[in-house]
């Protein structure tokens, strides 16, 4: 299979490339960011630009994995909208124009949002109910829905939308890995939500499995069972710093805390837990690593600072 990975310089995408190469597939990548010593050809172009279309024209991939979306944590503002929506549209346009057989859009389980009245174990048919409290998620949700719309708009293109839970592992990348980076993790006093995460190697394996099985549809992808945040913090060798919500809100962007949109607090207050059984049924996917391995690998790569 000839696979083009869009957003190839992210940590999970690199693992996807490794696993695809190991399975004997031909792989190339697109990313605005450099990937030093990449084992594949990486086209350092913006997916929305003409040069990216040239890559599709010349390579004629049989499958495309779109991992080129960004969250509000790494890119605030208007540009994020353009990347997520314009980029996703460009990927699907090029897939259709150059007869790509299978397009996999890699989204996030935070699509469903976190709210006090959200159910545990969201299924794929649930709408994104918590957007009102976290409008900065809107572009990612819209990109997810746009990709899902390809299932009926472009029936000739085999489309898969994956909503991956958080990943954790030695790369330390991703929302959860970044959140856990310090030695004291600020939490909300009186709240201890369940966090759902999988080992980053398993996250990549799920994407590769999707390509190999040519699975079609919208799927949540999870690893082992979710874990309370307090245990996650403890097992990665960190300490919890519980703050009342009003203190937390005021402290954001100060004292070394990241500047988060107010809606992001919902994600450390209420759980976003999804049901991954449909994907497991469809593909036979089962995580190789348990939560202990994911947490211990992260801890080994990012040992807690000792004072």
């Amino acid at each position: 299979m000839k696979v083009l990975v869009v957003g190839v310089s992210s940590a999970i995408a690199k693992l996807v490339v490794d696993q695809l190469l190991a399975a004997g597939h031909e792989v190339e990548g697109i990313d605005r960011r450099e990937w030093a010593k990449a084992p594949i050809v990486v086209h350092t172009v913006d997916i929305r630009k003409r040069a990216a279309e040239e890559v599709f024209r010349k390579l004629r991939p049989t499958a495309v994995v779109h991992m080129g979306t960004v969250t509000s944590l790494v890119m605030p503002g208007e540009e994020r909208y353009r990347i997520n929506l314009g980029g996703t549209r460009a990927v699907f346009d090029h897939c259709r124009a150059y007869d790509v057989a299978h397009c996999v859009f890699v989204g996030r389980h935070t699509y469903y949002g976190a709210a006090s009245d959200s159910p545990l174990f969201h299924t794929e048919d649930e709408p994104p109910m918590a957007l009102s409290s976290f409008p900065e998620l809107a572009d990612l949700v819209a990109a997810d829905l746009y990709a899902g719309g390809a299932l009926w708009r472009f029936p000739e293109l085999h489309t898969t939308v994956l909503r991956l839970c958080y990943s954790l592992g030695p790369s330390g990348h991703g929302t959860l890995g970044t959140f856990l980076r310090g030695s004291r993790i600020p939490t909300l006093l009186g709240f201890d939500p369940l966090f759902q995460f999988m080992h980053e190697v398993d996250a990549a394996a799920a994407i590769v499995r999707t390509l190999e099985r040519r699975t079609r549809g919208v799927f949540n992808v999870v690893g082992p069972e979710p874990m309370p945040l307090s245990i996650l913090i403890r097992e990665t060798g960190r300490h919890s710093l519980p703050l009342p919500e009003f203190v937390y809100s005021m402290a954001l962007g100060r004292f070394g805390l990241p500047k988060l949109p107010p809606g992001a607090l919902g994600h450390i207050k209420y759980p976003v837990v999804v049901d991954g059984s449909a994907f497991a049924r469809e593909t036979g996917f089962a995580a190789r690593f348990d939560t202990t391995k994911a947490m211990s690998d992260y801890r080994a790569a990012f040992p807690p600072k000792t004072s």
Partner: protein
Amino acid sequence: MAITPFGDSIEERIGRLEIPFNRYGVDQYGTSRAHLKWMYGFFGLLYRHYFSVKVYDIDRVPDRGRAMLVGNHSGGIAIDAAMVLAACFFEKNPPRLAQSMIEKFLNKIPFASLWAGRTGQFTGLPEHAVRLLEDDRLLLVFPEGARGTAKLFTERHSLVDFGTGFVRLALKTRSPIIPFGFLGGGEAMPTVANAYTLGKLMGVPYIPITPYGLPLPLPAMMQVRFGEPLMFAGDGTEDDEVVIGYVDEVKRSIAKLIADGRTPQPALLNARSSVVPGSSSVEASAR
């Protein structure tokens, strides 16, 4: 170490619950062994030393498998739920974790949210109910909702409107309904009025006002009377008229259990009765 009426410890009984705790002592819903220990320790004190709770026909609660405990609310705050949880844990052998469907507002309150989640008490959403029942858990449902706990002292033995959702869930998941009548909640919290505006300011539906001012329960006598399990035919897609008929049957059954509790009981001949340490007791009615 707290000792239960069966002579074992709370920890030992938690170990006998049919909950698949992982190596960190939590299940897939986040129910935590450590938090359950604290909860049952506290509820056990209330159950055995503060209130005087009598439990009838606890053997009608199945030892395992899915079931829905459906009962009446009273008592300003959910003391009744706490005592039913305690009864299913301390009086049943093997013990069972009853999982309430709690009011949505509780999840917004710091610590209440944390403790509810860690002790297996989840927001009353159909998705939660179906998932827990399909996982063969024991669900605790008060179809009267907050209107039930808001009953005044004079209304304590009445039943307000029941929704129909719980019967549809039971039909859909093929779960038996075990009706129960709870008495004593109104005596523990003799509500003379409810302060709705004050409640709204504090993020709760209302604050119960008692003759002594504080919304704190008195050490009252209580009864939990379990009725015969009810199993209805259907798959949850029946017309409202059919479902309302089933709801009325559950309601009648609960009303009868409450009436039985208000009737002075003659000595129970041929009754299997075990008086447990403390002031609570469990009895099986003569049949």
